[in-house]
């Protein structure tokens, strides 16, 4: 394996050997290690000192199921701290097949020219790009696929990334030519700051993956695969209803944040539920289940068609549907699907875009529940980068300051997704303390709080939540480093042989003798690195807190957020 390094200031490329300290790192573990080592924590996230790092996980390119997630890392323009955002799509597996451990992009070009990168077995070509400037992600992917063929990987930014908006994401082409996103933290703005419109990946004749003990790896991968397919969540619920299966569950549990976190239940929940989505997809000849990358056996993604049975969107996630749905009190699933399509095309994170919309509704810029109004604002303001669009496109905190709104549901500037911290208290601990800013995937306590996976801890009480979030954050940092989809966690938590299979695969692939402790030490180490970066960047304990309005009672349970600062500060002390 090797490191590909692109310097945009010099418009140069170098190929480097992988340092020994990075050999057993991948995905988030590697992006965070590189950012922590090479990026000055106090630098401007959109300046020349920041670096953008792409890294496949430890298992990328192998037969391990669900191992094709791509990690993207940098200092975040949204949170001001370190960021790892991961995505499905074909990029991680193509990088792995090229033998690329990480692609590091540094510097900013002089002048005002834009560029694209073409990554292949011999290195990276840096080319001037004019044709696709100002275009959306769908057109970029379509054009590159036409030019280079179906088997070309594409990572691209839309108009929002070009304008360096803090909500800008990086879009990744999936096996069907649709869009997956490294959504959170504004990493599309970092790519835009380096004036790279897109990156294409050609893995032809790549060096491939080395596996030290192929037979042992194959056996472990089969156990792992069986566990994923046997679990009720990853084997049944997610493939049929997608992640949107959670709408009704969270609504019934009183944990569906509604009208900018005023209530825990939404009267229009059924209209935006996974069951409704499934029926709609089937009635319009859509596809209710497919994977976001080759080798995914959970297949929680889907193709959602419009009323005329034409493709509208895919990867239509619960958090997106919650955000523009219950969060903004819109119960029109078709309008939300249109919004999802536009967000994908413009290249903006759906959760934080909806966070800006909630603030806009608080400010009276839009009526509550106005789905068409949100769609119009995204298309006519954010996409066109009007002054209002730039305000909204820089996130909820920026929008709140512009309009004098203080009810803003963010931590470290990033919107709290889809699960009410007062009714699902474990997730509140994660939102407050993860180095990533409010991020449900960083320690998904909904497992034990609501779904009874990995035990059951009463979501409304304080007891056990800190330990739950801490353990999940450690385990997640390890999974993210392996490039595994977060949804493997259900089987890992419930079936011991599945977690052992992960260790066996590491040992077989890399010729090491890791124990379960080594696996969790990897997660601890990643978190420690990230926390140290954030402290050096100027983030303090006060940034590890939920918004003040979380002290209000939340109907229907009338619970409040009641963790002290001291308790929160203890979460990641290890």
């Amino acid at each position: 394996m090797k490191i590909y390094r692109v310097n945009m200031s010099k418009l140069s490329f170098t190929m480097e050997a992988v340092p020994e300290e990075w050999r057993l790192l991948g995905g988030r573990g590697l992006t965070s290690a590189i950012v922590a080592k090479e990026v000055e924590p106090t630098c401007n996230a959109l300046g020349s000192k920041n670096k953008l790092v792409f890294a496949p996980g430890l298992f990328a390119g192998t037969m391990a199921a669900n191992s094709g997630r791509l990690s993207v890392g940098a200092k975040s323009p949204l949170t001001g701290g370190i960021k790892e955002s991961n995505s499905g799509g074909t990029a991680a597996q193509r990088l792995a097949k090229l033998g690329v451990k990480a692609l590091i992009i540094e510097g900013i070009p002089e002048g005002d020219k834009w560029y694209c990168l073409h990554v292949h077995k011999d290195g990276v070509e840096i080319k001037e790009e004019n044709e696709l400037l100002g275009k959306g992600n769908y057109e970029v992917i379509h054009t590159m696929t036409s030019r280079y063929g179906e088997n070309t990987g594409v990572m691209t930014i839309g108009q929002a990334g070009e304008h360096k908006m803090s909500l800008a994401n990086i879009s990744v082409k999936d096996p069907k030519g649709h869009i997956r996103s490294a959504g959170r933290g504004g990493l599309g703005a970092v790519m835009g700051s380096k004036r790279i419109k897109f990156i294409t990946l050609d893995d032809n004749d790549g060096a491939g993956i080395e596996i030290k003990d192929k037979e042992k790896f194959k056996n472990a991968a089969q156990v792992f695969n069986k566990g994923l397919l046997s679990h009720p969540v990853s084997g049944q619920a997610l493939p049929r209803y997608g992640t949107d299966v959670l709408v009704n569950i969270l609504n019934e549990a009183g944990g569906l944040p509604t009208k900018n976190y005023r209530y825990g239940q939404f009267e229009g929940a059924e209209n935006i539920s996974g069951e409704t989505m499934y029926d709609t997809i089937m009635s319009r000849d859509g596809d209710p289940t497919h994977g976001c990358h080759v080798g995914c056996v959970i297949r929680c993604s889907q193709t959602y068609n419009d009323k005329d049975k034409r493709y509208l969107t895919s990867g239509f996630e619960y958090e997106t549907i919650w955000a523009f749905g219950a969060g903004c009190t819109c119960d029109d699933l078709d309008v939300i699907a249109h919004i999802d399509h536009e967000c994908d095309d413009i290249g903006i994170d759906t959760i934080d875009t909806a966070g800006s919309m909630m603030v806009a509704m608080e400010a009276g810029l839009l009526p509550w529940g106005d789905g068409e109004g949100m769609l119009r604002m995204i298309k006519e303001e954010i996409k066109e980068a009007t002054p209002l669009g730039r305000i909204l496109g820089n996130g909820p905190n920026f929008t709140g300051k512009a309009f004098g709104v203080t009810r803003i549901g963010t931590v470290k500037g990033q919107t709290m997704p889809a699960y009410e911290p007062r009714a699902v208290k474990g997730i509140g601990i994660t939102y407050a303390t993860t180095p990533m800013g409010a991020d449900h995937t960083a320690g998904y306590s909904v497992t034990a709080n609501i779904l009874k996976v990995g035990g059951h801890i009463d979501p409304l009480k304080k007891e056990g939540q800190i330990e739950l979030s801490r353990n999940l954050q450690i385990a997640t940092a390890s999974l993210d480093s392996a490039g595994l989809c977060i949804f493997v966690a259900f089987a890992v938590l419930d079936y011991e042989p599945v977690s052992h299979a992960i260790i066996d695969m590491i040992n077989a692939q890399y010729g090491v003798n890791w124990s379960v402790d080594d696996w969790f030490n990897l997660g601890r180490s990643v978190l420690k690195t990230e926390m140290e970066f954030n402290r050096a960047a100027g983030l303090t304990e006060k940034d590890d807190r939920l918004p003040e309005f979380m002290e209000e009672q939340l109907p229907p349970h009338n619970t409040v957020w009641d963790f002290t600062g001291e308790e929160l500060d203890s979460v990641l002390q290890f």
Partner: protein
Amino acid sequence: MRIEIKLYGHLKCLNEKLDCLNKNRFCLEAAQGTILSEIHKMIFVNPADNLVSIVDGHAQKPDYSIEHDCSISIFPPMGGRTHNPFEKI
């Protein structure tokens, strides 16, 4: 006593067995002291499955004692453990 049942996911298909007018929301009569797992049996779901049952907004265990006028939302199995696929390995 009277209780309300709401079925979700593929459990909605159970209503064909229940003759409840093809709705996933209906009412049942149950005796005082009935527990949650007995309700599961009444509506033809296996209480051994790790169902998610939310009673008036609170996730409850199978031995929870049902009260008059409560609303029970029942979701398909979401947790593992019960049918461990590795028991024979």
